[in-house]
């Protein structure tokens, strides 16, 4: 969470909720019940929902990755992410990074609440005006859903 219109500026970030980095290096990734995920890979439609997930507020992304920031705070988040699909279908094979997949792009939106335990403030997303930034906007580009293989399954 950044000051209005200051996304990407760590000096103007106030909250960064993540599940943490595992000792193995597994990055912000946690096991979840299968019921959290509803997906139709062919259409590109999917939904990821959860309520009251324990996470940590690292204050900002740099502190979350490198440490050394303000004291991390126990927190909880709830979210409902929806991938609309119905975009381009793409088959990708990347020999450098060692993965392959078939994907369908499409818009995505999110509803979330987040709060630091005991702080008494609940932060809530606005459903209006959401967008996925393009690389020219400093973002990752189009969301997508698909089937992916890597590691020993990349052949």
């Amino acid at each position, binding site marked *: 969470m*950044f*000051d*209005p*219109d*200051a*996304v*990407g500026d760590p000096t103007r970030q106030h909250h960064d909720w993540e*599940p943490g980095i595992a000792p193995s290096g*597994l*990055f*912000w*990734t*946690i096991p*979840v019940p*299968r019921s*959290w*995920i509803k*997906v139709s*890979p062919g259409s590109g439609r*999917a939904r*990821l929902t959860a309520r009251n997930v324990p996470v940590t507020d690292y204050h900002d992304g740099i502190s979350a990755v490198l440490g050394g920031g303000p004291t991390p705070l126990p927190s909880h988040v709830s*979210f409902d*992410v929806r*991938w609309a699909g119905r975009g381009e279908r*793409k088959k990708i094979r990347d020999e*450098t*990074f*060692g*993965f392959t*997949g078939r*994907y369908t*792009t499409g818009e*995505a*939106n*999110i509803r*979330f609440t987040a709060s630091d335990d005991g702080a*008494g*403030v609940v*932060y*809530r*997303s606005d459903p209006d*005006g959401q*967008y*996925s930034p393009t*690389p020219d906007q400093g*973002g*990752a*580009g*189009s*969301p*997508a*859903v*698909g*089937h*992916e*293989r*890597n*590691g*020993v*399954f990349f052949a």
Partner: protein
Amino acid sequence: MPRPIPGGFDETFNLVPDGAFAHVLPPGIGFEMSTITDFNGVVGASEIRGKARGSDGSQYSFDTDMRFMRGAYVGLDGRLRQGAFGFI
């Protein structure tokens, strides 16, 4: 538990295919979306920006990276497993 992908960001935030400092790539089409290696399954990834409000009246802009992975993977113990994972 699964193993992380070998690639990601190096310490100067360049993308590298192995030896990464942060084992994650951007959540958009064209990049490896899974953060789990030795993985074969369905994935979804998204970066979403927007506005948010605090119950105290504060206003913010947000930027989320949300993903899921569900399928087969080889765990840290070397065994083939099935699982579901969220990147939050």
